[in-house]
């Protein structure tokens, strides 16, 4: 069976990648582009550790075929901020102690940003239900919810300033 060639934008950079047709987007990111910040925690599309942004929306990269990413704009945890200039969601996770082992964290952060962007982070209950696609075994979610709420305020402020 032939490989396929996929053209996409990853973290702002155009990429052309050959890969087997049965690769998933997360295989492409981790194994071929060495973007190992996106994790794999399950094989049934439940844990959310592989969450990335796909054309601006949070998706589970384990449940997208590499071929489906043709022409897509993909952003991973590596593409949203750096030590010097963290995304407000990254800062909030640190400040609120919203992570422990760190394994689910990239997916949580990407899901959290999408939640805020959609306007679904208005209160604790909506944040909790908005995160149902992401499993964390360490934190009990208490501080993750606080982090998303705090980032939502920060992101709103930033947006207003920019807007």
């Amino acid at each position, binding site marked *: *069976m*032939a490989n*396929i060639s996929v053209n996409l934008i990853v973290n702002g950079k155009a990429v052309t990648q050959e890969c*087997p*047709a*049965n690769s*998933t987007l997360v295989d492409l990111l981790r194994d071929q582009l060495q973007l190992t910040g996106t994790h794999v925690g399950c*094989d*049934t*599309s*439940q844990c*959310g550790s592989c*969450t990335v942004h*796909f054309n601006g*929306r*949070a*998706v*589970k990269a*384990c*449940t*997208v*075929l590499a*071929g*489906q990413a*043709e022409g897509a704009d993909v952003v991973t945890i590596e593409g949203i901020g750096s030590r010097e200039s963290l995304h407000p969601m990254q800062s909030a996770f640190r400040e609120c102690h919203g992570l422990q082992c760190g394994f689910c964290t990239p997916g949580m952060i990407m*899901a959290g940003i*999408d*939640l805020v962007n*959609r306007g*679904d982070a208005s209160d604790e209950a909506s944040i909790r239900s*908005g995160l*149902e*696609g*992401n499993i964390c075994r360490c934190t009990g979610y208490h501080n993750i919810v606080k982090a998303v709420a705090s980032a939502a305020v920060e992101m709103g402020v930033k947006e207003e300033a920019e807007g």
Partner: protein
Amino acid sequence: MYQFNYHQPQTIEEARSLYNKSEDGLYLAGGHTLIPSLRQRLSSPSDVIDLSSIAALTGIERQGGVLRIGALTTHDSVATSEAVLGHCSALATLASGIGDAQVRNRGTIGGSIANNDPAADYPAAILGLNATVHTDQRDIQGDNFFSGMFETSLWAGEMVVGISFPSVTAASYVKFPNPASRYATVGVMVARIDDGVRVAITGAASCVFRASAMEDALSSKLSENSLDNVAIDPDTLMSDIHASAEYRAHLCGVMARKAVAGL
């Protein structure tokens, strides 16, 4: 995943031709049922034909009292569409409760109904809202679409291209999710269409079904109390580690009453 050939056709005709040429082809919509089953190696198609580039398959239109949703429209698009909210907010509610946010961003209505998972939400909408399923070859009445567990009346290679929902007077969908998978343990759609009442129940049995006893009771009086003496026979329902048939039968009543209250 087993190996397969991957195709991304641009038109329905191209897709159909690829299907006909393949040994054992499968159409891929949003992929949120198919890809997990490929990953679990439960399915081994020779060719995966990705429909996502076919523009004709997406979009939501409301014309002359009929809401038409393209097969490749995502759950999130349905949940947030002004047209859907204006036509039948219960349909938006149903879509907003499927899976999780990431799933709703990718999963599609066409993929969901073509797969006909017994615990999926959309089948309750197709049946309960008296929808019509449009394929690349014909129109299928919602009542005739679902034929059994993971089975539909689609022919081999027939592609769902869209779904039309007639106007409804009122409708309400209430679901009791499986706590692990978040699929429906029991989901009940109650709708008043013209003078009739339709009740469709998903999750409870091996295939979505219309609860005729409930429909009859509600047709004479559309009130929660009308359901007081209507029971669903547990012998017709599924039993598994998450819920016994008896409990599912009970939940059918509870969810139906909540749905009626929400009309």
